């Protein structure tokens, strides 16, 4: 479904965020991306939907080379790939409903959407998405009046509006209390298992990886240092990924 080949990203200031990263994701997988802060996880996820332009390498989405796609082409690809962010990235002053609705923008006409006109079908879809994350009763309150966990669920509902085949989740639980982490990841797991949506999720805590992921890759200083099943990450692997001084801790 997704194939990454020799992906390299060098920022204008000379930082090499990704070095020759190659891996493949099969449909229906829940892939965890692990590594220290600054190891290139966020850059990797953003290269997949080209929020960040890769320096070199190829990314194939269902056989189509995304790095060669035109502006219109990449927007067509983006709308099939939902994204969930560490800081939720909701428009705080807009209502929850409008935030969820903005997930549909890739499908609708520019003029009518600029006037905030959406079809009845899309409105129903938005309510259904909110129902899926248990927030239908909060549709018409402002986004910033919700708690962090609720905001992240709105973020998931927004991604669902895209009818995605893949969800990219960039540290979706890093800004939340550990107890809320499970609730958010359970929603992602549910979408993965029940709807067959592929999930690529960067995570900090290894026990979350063991609990939710079906496969894992690890980055260290922009290089791919591990690829396999979550349970294959033993102490030796762990030290290789996180450095000799790291200690295993768990999130609740």
């Amino acid at each position: 479904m997704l194939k990454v080949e020799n992906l390299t990203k060098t920022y204008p200031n000379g930082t090499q965020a990704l070095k020759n990263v190659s891996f493949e994701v099969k449909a229906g997988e829940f892939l965890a991306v692990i590594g220290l802060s600054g190891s290139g996880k966020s850059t990797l996820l953003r290269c997949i939907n080209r929020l960040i332009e890769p320096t070199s390498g190829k990314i194939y989405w269902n056989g189509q080379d995304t790095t060669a796609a035109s502006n219109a082409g990449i927007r067509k690809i983006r709308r099939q790939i939902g994204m969930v962010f560490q800081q939720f990235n909701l428009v705080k002053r807009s209502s929850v409903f409008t935030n969820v609705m903005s997930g549909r923008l890739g499908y609708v006409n520019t003029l009518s959407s600029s006037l905030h006109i959406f079809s009845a079908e899309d409105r129903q879809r938005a309510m259904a998405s909110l129902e899926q994350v248990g927030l239908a009763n909060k549709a018409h309150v402002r986004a910033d009046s919700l708690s962090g966990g609720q905001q992240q669920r709105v973020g998931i509902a927004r991604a669902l509006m895209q009818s995605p085949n893949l969800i990219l989740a960039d540290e979706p639980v890093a800004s939340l209390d550990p107890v809320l982490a499970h609730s958010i990841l359970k929603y992602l797991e549910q979408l993965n298992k029940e709807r067959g949506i592929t999930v690529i999720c960067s995570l900090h805590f290894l026990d979350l990886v063991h609990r939710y992921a079906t496969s894992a890759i690890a980055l260290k200083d922009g290089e791919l240092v591990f690829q396999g099943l979550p349970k294959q990450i033993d102490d030796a692997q762990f030290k290789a990924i996180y450095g000799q001084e790291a200690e295993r801790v768990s999130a609740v």
Partner: protein
Amino acid sequence: MTTSEKSLIPSTNSSLSVFFSSILPGLGQFFLKKRERGLLIFLTSLVLAFLIYWSLDNQEVGKINIGGLTTSWLWLPFILFWAWNVVDVHVLRVHGRSTILPGLLFVAIIIYVIAWQVTGVRLNRLVERFDDARIVAANLLNPDMITISVRGEDKICAWSCMYSYIGDKLEGRPREGIIRPSDNLLRIIGSIKPLPAPEWQVNLGLAEPGSEVNTFVAGTMIETIAMGLMATLFSTILAIPVSFLAAHNIMSRFPGGTVIYYAMRGILNIVRAIDTIVWGLIVIVWVGLGSFAGVIALTIHSVAALGKLFSEEIEHIDAGPVEAVTATGANLIQTIRYAVVPQIVPSFLAYSLLRWDINMRSATVIGFVAGGGIGFFVVETTRMGGYQQYATALWVVAIVIVLVDYISSRWREAILNDQSPRDETNQRSVFNALRLAFYVILGVAVFAYCWNITEISIRSLLDPGKNFGQLILDFLNIDLTPAVVQVVVQQMLVTIFQAMLATTLGAFLALPVSFLAAKNLTGSNQLLGWLYYLARGVLNILRSIEALLYVVIFVFWVGIGPFAGMLALSITSFALIGKLFSEAIENIDAGPIEAVIATGANRLQMIVYAVLPQIVPPFISYLIYQWDINVRMATIIGFAGGGGIGLTLTTFFGSLQYHKAGTVVAVIVIVVALMDFASAKLRRALV
């Protein structure tokens, strides 16, 4: 300075450094690794030396004769400053720290003596011409608002007359005469007159062709309000595209965008540095005298000010939602609509409302140069000595501006604290639709009316006056001959000193009042509570009237010149500083006060240790801010007889010497931009 830092200073250099400073001020400090202090002392002494020399040469400031040698006695404090600088090095060397207060004292003596002289302060005039002032005061206190006609004879019915009239009527005592609004008040507000029916009424069949209908003729204040409204609307619309061009985060996405960004920022800063009133002088060459010129001048300055504020707002938006909406596959327009617009709309609206307030104030004085509005009315009436008529204008301006100030700040608060969702999908009821339709129709009607009375004419906009081409050419080719530059620089210095004295005087007056106008200090006591409202009221009313409108009074009292301008500026300074100071006092943290009282300190100790440290930095910061504002204001105060560079500018404009006027404008831009930059820097260092 800590002991460890002190030990860093090599001891062999230290006695030498005293010697260094006695040769060149600041050099010793520089060697003691107090680079900034050294540089500052050096620059200060250079500036002081120049000022002493310049003021002696031009205005004979401090001139004395000692045995045939003519010099300025100001060299004495200068020598003392130099001596302090040497002592400072010594103390720094021995103790590691030293106070700058003596140095500041000598600097202040020199600067204030020069400022006093070049501003032409003549305190004796305040007393000698007190009788003149009394006449003005009597006229001001008895405005021409109400006319009473007794047996066919019309007289002005001022406050005391109105009071007794109303009293008599209420208690049923017989009272001769009929009262009505005076013609003067009707000129300001507006009156209903029979006029030939306008074309649109004839076309709609509402009136017979050629017949007369009762029409509301807008007064000068209505015209002023219309000017302020139109300028705010136009500048908000124009500032939006400008602000996107001046926002770094937007422009850096395009190739070559950074160049446009810097160019745009530069243009905005230059346009902003030129006061609305100065723009008025330029615009009248373009479209001629009238309200329309006023609207354009207000709009030009407003676009620059709003453009800067808007672009800073765009630069500070949260990038997260932009990323998220882009990731859904939205295109650029959709991303702006859903991720950028919701973030910037409230602050844009709030800034526009703030600008509306400022524009209304400027609109009251733009008539001094551009014609039209209440400013022009004031020029006309005071020229003929109609101080009672002028007083009415002041009262009306005060009422309108206090109201605008109140509405603007309440709306801004409501917008910025708004917690209700901006949800266009939820509330589509008939009532909301009707309400919206009503507002739209009302808005269009107000717009059309304002368009009409401000005489907006696209034709004259596209067809510049015959001198305008000359003006542009001359402005591109300004006169830099030494004689002209010398005159301009001299007047600019006078202007800066004028602004400084006004700030000082205003601050001295404001200091006691600001304590009365602070709610947290006056809340408990009933009498103080009343004084609070009185102080706030006086500050608000004085603040609502522009300095240019005050100049007229002082010109009559102390005569034309920088002194009158300085006094007018000190009134507005008093009002604004009083407001800012009292707010600073209201904002102090109660925690430290509680803590100091808990240690058993008395009231005075509490003030010294808990209150003063909290209010001194903001006070100094506001003083610098006020000086900055006053320099801007002082550049235009000359238009009404307040002296300084404004007088030079109008003289050059009036005699069509545009290349010299261009020099003045260039110097104003440089000085205002420098002051703006320096004051922002200083204030950031303070708070």
